Each structure stands twice: as structure tokens, then as C-alpha cells.
């Protein structure tokens, strides 16, 4: 990784993401500032915010991409979180959803829990993703490179995996909204028009669209 002081900030990347986000896109953000800052900069009902469950934003986003194949799904995950569930890379590589973009913030620390050291802060995570079967994986170190990568057309070879070299951001951002998990879920499902469960008196209910 390059010198920490010269890396872009998470906010630099988020501003580009906000400016280029497709209208139909669904965004899943990992715990801590990944969610808090995104809520502060670009809150919308199509955001699904994690508060905890470290390492599970990526696999949840994979499931969402499977269920919503017509929408772009973007997940913001951290390097420390990825290391907790590296197997998810293999599953993303195997499923190869063309509509999934993984933005991996590589800041070299466990930022959400105060900046503790990672087990290894210097991994080539794009190479790791490629080894796991994600062909479209690249390391990104500048805002310009991120803009270019986000503008690249979908080529039908599976998920896009961008490793964003970033400064650690251990100062906790205060989100502008309440992070009620059930409210987050219901707001999200209403925004995408997800079917709801319609019960019957003696079981056998179905999911149906209104």
C-alpha cells in the first residue's frame, strides 16, 4: 500500500460514487463509517446499512444481486471485514453475478473498532480476488482511477471488484438518521417493490407483489 497520508479518503470515493450512482442501484454498506458516512452523504431508501455483523455485507450483497438481477448492486466492505469471511470471495467468483460491484476499502486497519492493526495490511486483495475466480478485480489508488473504473462497461464476466486504497478513518461519523435495523429493511423492500408474505388461515402462505 502507498503512504497512508497520501491516500484518498473514504469521502473522496463516496463523492464519486454518489455522483455516478445509477438510479436503479442498490447499495449495501458495511458497519461503522462505511454506513455512517454513506448515510450522511447520500441517504436513500435503496441503501441497506449494516450496524454490526462484520464480514457479512459482501455475502448479503451477493444474495441481493442474485435476487435482483436487473439492478446494479454495490457493496462497500472493508479489508478487515473481508478477512473475516474470505470464503465469500470464492462464492462470488463461482456465482459470477454481472450486476455486483464490490468496493473494498483497504485502509489497513480495523477502522470501525478504533484502528487496531490488521493481521496483514499489505495483501494484494485484487490478486486474491482474481485467484478466487473474480476476473474483474483491480487495485485503485486515486479518485481518477476510481471514476474510470466505475465508468467501465459491464462485460458479462461476473462481479467487479475494486480495491480502494484509502486513509484510515477512525473518527466516527454521526449518521443523520436512526439506524433502526427493521426500519432499514422495510424501507429498502418498499423501495424496490419486493413481494410481501400473504398468509392464509391454515398455513401455505406465499410471497406476492401488491
Amino acid at each position, binding site marked *: 500500500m502507498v503512504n497512508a497520508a497520501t491516500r484518498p479518503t473514504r469521502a473522496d470515493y463516496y463523492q464519486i460514487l454518489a455522483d455516478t450512482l445509477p438510479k436503479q442501484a442498490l447499495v*449495501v454498506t458495511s458497519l461503522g463509517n462505511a454506513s455512517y458516512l454513506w448515510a450522511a452523504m447520500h441517504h436513500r431508501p435503496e441503501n*441497506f446499512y*449494516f*450496524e*454490526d*455483523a462484520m464480514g*457479512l*455485507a*459482501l*455475502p*448479503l*450483497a*451477493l*444474495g*441481493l*444481486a*442474485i*435476487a*435482483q438481477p436487473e439492478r446494479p448492486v454495490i457493496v462497500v466492505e472493508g479489508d478487515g471485514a473481508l478477512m473475516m*469471511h474470505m*470464503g*465469500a470471495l*470464492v*462464492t462470488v467468483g*463461482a*456465482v459470477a453475478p454481472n450486476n455486483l460491484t464490490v468496493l473494498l476499502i483497504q485502509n489497513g486497519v480495523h477502522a470501525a473498532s478504533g484502528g487496531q492493526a490488521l493481521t496483514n495490511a499489505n495483501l494484494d486483495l485484487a490478486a486474491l480476488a482474481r485467484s478466487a475466480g473474480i476476473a474483474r478485480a483491480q487495485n485503485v489508488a486515486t479518485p481518477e482511477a476510481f471514476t474510470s473504473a466505475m465508468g467501465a462497461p459491464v462485460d458479462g464476466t461476473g462481479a467487479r471488484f475494486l480495491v480502494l486504497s484509502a486513509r484510515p478513518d477512525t473518527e466516527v461519523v454521526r449518521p443523520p438518521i436512526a439506524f433502526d*435495523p*427493521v426500519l*432499514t*429493511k422495510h424501507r*429498502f*423492500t418498499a423501495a*424496490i417493490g*419486493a*413481494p410481501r*408474505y400473504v*398468509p392464509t388461515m391454515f*398455513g*401455505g*402462505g*406465499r*410471497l406476492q407483489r401488491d
Partner: protein
Amino acid sequence: MVASGKQSADPHRPSEILDTLKNLGFGVAIAVPDSWLGEILVQIEHEPTMRLVRATHEEEALAIACGTRLGGLRTAMFVQNAGLLSMGAGMVSLAQRYQFPLLMLVSYRGTVEDPVFYHTPKGRVTEPVLKGIGLAYALADRSRPIGPQVERAATYAEEASCPFALLLSQEDVQW
């Protein structure tokens, strides 16, 4: 969880499970296999109305299942009870906290009827752990048809907005 109805000849209980999932509109199954689950997962792969996702770890599978359900697909999981033991953090901090209704079909290894002795430690602690983490569950009743029991487990998950685990014996689930 006790299904209504008399004892009946049940020609092939794994087929009943799969037929029930299809009838209830389950669109996807997320799985980590064990020896009892191997063939029913292959059968699901051949189903045109269902998709199988093979995960690398049960906690990862749980998160994928939350994502498919969030996106509007009725979702089942197939895991061994070892997976219930290893997914505890994700269960409480994601699936239960966000109230995702998920049907978990679990091969219950390590009971007195399991011929593979090394599963015993997992069988011994499974139900105490499920109670400890507040995961709703039931043991499938082998004297009754399995299809209605799956349906009721699925209904419980939806009505209570939570994951529900149905613990299955070898003859319930091994194809």
C-alpha cells in the same frame, strides 16, 4: 412443531421436502453440504424453478440467504447442525436483528441414531445452543408426513419474522 394427520406411509421423505419447497414458491436454496444433504442439493440444482447457491461456510450462507430474502426471493437454507453452532454471531446480529424470515433445513447429526460417532459432540450441544441464541426450532416427527412439517416451519418463519430451524433425521433428508 407437530404436524397434524395420522401416521402414513411416506414413500420418499426427501422428495416430499423438495416438492413442498416448490409448492410454497421457494426460489432459492443456500447450502453448505454434509453427507446426508449431498443428493437433495443435486436435485435442487436440477429444478428449473429453484436456484442453489453453494456457500463456503454456514455463517456466509446465512448472510447470502438474508440477501436473497431481502431482494424478494423466498429462501431456504440447507446446513448441518455444525453450521448452526458456527453461525451464532451472524444469526443474532444480522438474521434475527433485521428479522429475516428464513427456513433452515438442518441435518441433525450426532443424535443417538447417528452411526457416525464423531458427530456426537455437536449433537449433544445443538439444542442448548439454539435455545441460548433464541433460534426457533423443531425436531421433525418421523411418524408424520414431512411435507406439512416443512410448510409449518416455513409459515412460522414468516409469521414470526425470524429464522426457523427444522432439525431433520437421515431418513428425512438423505435422498
